[in-house]
């Protein structure tokens, strides 16, 4: 679905990402983890074609540099971390904005309407359709904006910390909706800070450290005590139950991290 090779990004002359290789496949939820400021958001923006980059990014076999903005917007949807809605729009109108890259000069087609309706149902905001989005709670707004990203009907969805600021129940609702979306044959790339949430809901984990990929693979292979100490500088209790791993940070790690650069 998505293949990035030798991807490097610099922002105002400062290198943020260094020769990153990354593959995302249909039907999988891939979690992106790493400390603050290692370039997770930069990586996501670059994959969406929102930043200039060196190297190659191919989505569905098509090079990101060679397609129009509109074509790109039909392949990748991006859910930014900031939940900013400028005007007191209705929930339905916010979700309808997702159809921007699909609409012709005329009005809404039946397919557009169906996409909006099913996205609102998937995020459980159909009941809120006529409510004013700026008057909703933070959790409801997050779901509305996620529905907006789903309604874009792209094979790839990139979500930057979609569960930030949500209560535990809403965090799980969000992850379940993303999983369901992946099950329908889409690729989901999501950045997270909650280790247990990532371990239990993602098929694969990518751990990043100082602009590079530290390790990538299944949660049990990547979220090890050594990796957590190296990447986050923490010690954690790692256990598992019938549903998957449980990771609880217990303190800052005492040993010096292994030098990887």
């Amino acid at each position, binding site marked *: 679905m998505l293949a990035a090779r030798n991807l490097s990004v610099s922002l105002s002359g400062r290198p943020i990402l260094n020769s990153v290789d990354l593959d995302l496949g249909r039907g999988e939820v891939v979690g992106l983890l790493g400390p603050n400021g290692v370039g997770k958001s930069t990586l996501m*923006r670059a994959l*969406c074609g*929102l930043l200039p980059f060196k190297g190659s990014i191919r989505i569905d076999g098509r090079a990101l540099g060679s397609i*129009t*903005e*509109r*074509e*790109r*917007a*039909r392949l*990748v*949807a*991006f*859910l*930014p971390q*900031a939940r*900013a*809605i*400028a*005007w*007191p*729009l*209705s929930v339905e*109108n*916010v979700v309808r*904005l*997702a159809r*921007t*890259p699909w*609409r012709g000069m005329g009005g809404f087609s039946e397919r557009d309407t169906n996409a909006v309706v099913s996205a609102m149902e998937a995020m459980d905001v159909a009941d809120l359709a006529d409510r004013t989005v*700026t008057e909703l709670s933070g959790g409801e707004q997050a779901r509305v*904006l996620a529905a*907006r990203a789903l309604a*874009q009907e792209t094979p790839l969805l990139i979500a930057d910390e979609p569960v930030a600021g949500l209560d535990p129940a809403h965090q799980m609702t969000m992850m379940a909706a993303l999983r369901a979306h992946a099950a329908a044959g889409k690729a989901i790339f999501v950045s997270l800070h909650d280790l247990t949430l990532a371990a239990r809901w993602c098929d694969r984990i990518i751990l990043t450290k100082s602009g590079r990929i530290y390790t990538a693979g299944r949660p049990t292979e990547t979220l090890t005590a050594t990796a957590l100490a190296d990447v986050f500088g923490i010690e954690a209790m790692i256990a598992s139950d019938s549903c998957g791993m449980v990771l609880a940070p217990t303190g800052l790690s005492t040993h010096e991290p292994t030098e990887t650069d």
Partner: protein
Amino acid sequence: MLNAVLALACLVLTVASLLIGPADLDLTASVTGLFAGGDEAAMIIMQEIRLPRALLALTVGIGLGLSGAVLQGLLRNPLAEPGIIGITASASFGAVAIFYTGLAGASLYALPAGALAGAALSVVLLLGIAARAGATLTLILAGVALTSLAGALTSLILNLSPNPFASYEIIFWLLGSLRDRSMSHVWLALPLMVAGWLMLAMTARALDALSLGEEAAASLGVKLPLVRLLIVAGTALCVGAGTAVAGAIGFVGLVVPHLVRPFTDRLPSSLLLPSALGGGALLLAADIAARLVVPTRELNVGVLTALIGAPFFLWLVVRSRRELF
């Protein structure tokens, strides 16, 4: 429905504007004079004095209302307006500079060209600042600075002005007026303004997507550099051409989108046509009021719009601290 009401208001006010003036023409004389007939005095009054005045009030108002709505959408800020972010002041400065150099007498097109250049320069500066800083507050502060700078440069020209009569002419022009304009003013400004309207109207979908922020809009396929360019050029054309023929008329672009917003679904695209029509209606009404308030001495329409607009803006600032728009 809203658009129909506003279009009707524009029509009624245009007719009213044609029927009001110091010359005592009755309805029959006015109508026959307008459509080439009747006695010659009535014809001249209608076709060469009142018609251009009404047309300019309508079209300049449309441009101001539309550019206000578009700028508010682009900046995602309800306080944006061509006057507040310095475009009108810069256009005025451009025109005054032409006044001072004496080029205004040389060609009918010199004055509008100066106003257009001033408007374009200010918008380019503002967008440069916006692209660097990103925050809308920065842009508004930069606009305040730009307004002051353009105002200071205009004052400097007044200081340097060789004779008091020239200064008086400049000051009077700066107050904004639609008095004694001719059809050549209309033909000069109208094509530029129509081009500006079209450019601004093309950004409607992009403005909607921008409700979600610039990053989300870009991810929806919006070409932000192109949208900014269209808005720069479109606003400069509307406001520059409007200022060139009517002087500085403030606050229309700020007030109108706010007045019509509650009657729409608040999508920026839904606001464009009502703001355009509302701007036309408001400026027509203000221009009629300027003629009627003090019967013996006609007021400048720019003074009137500022008198109404400035308190409105103040109320807006106070209210915006309490609730979101």
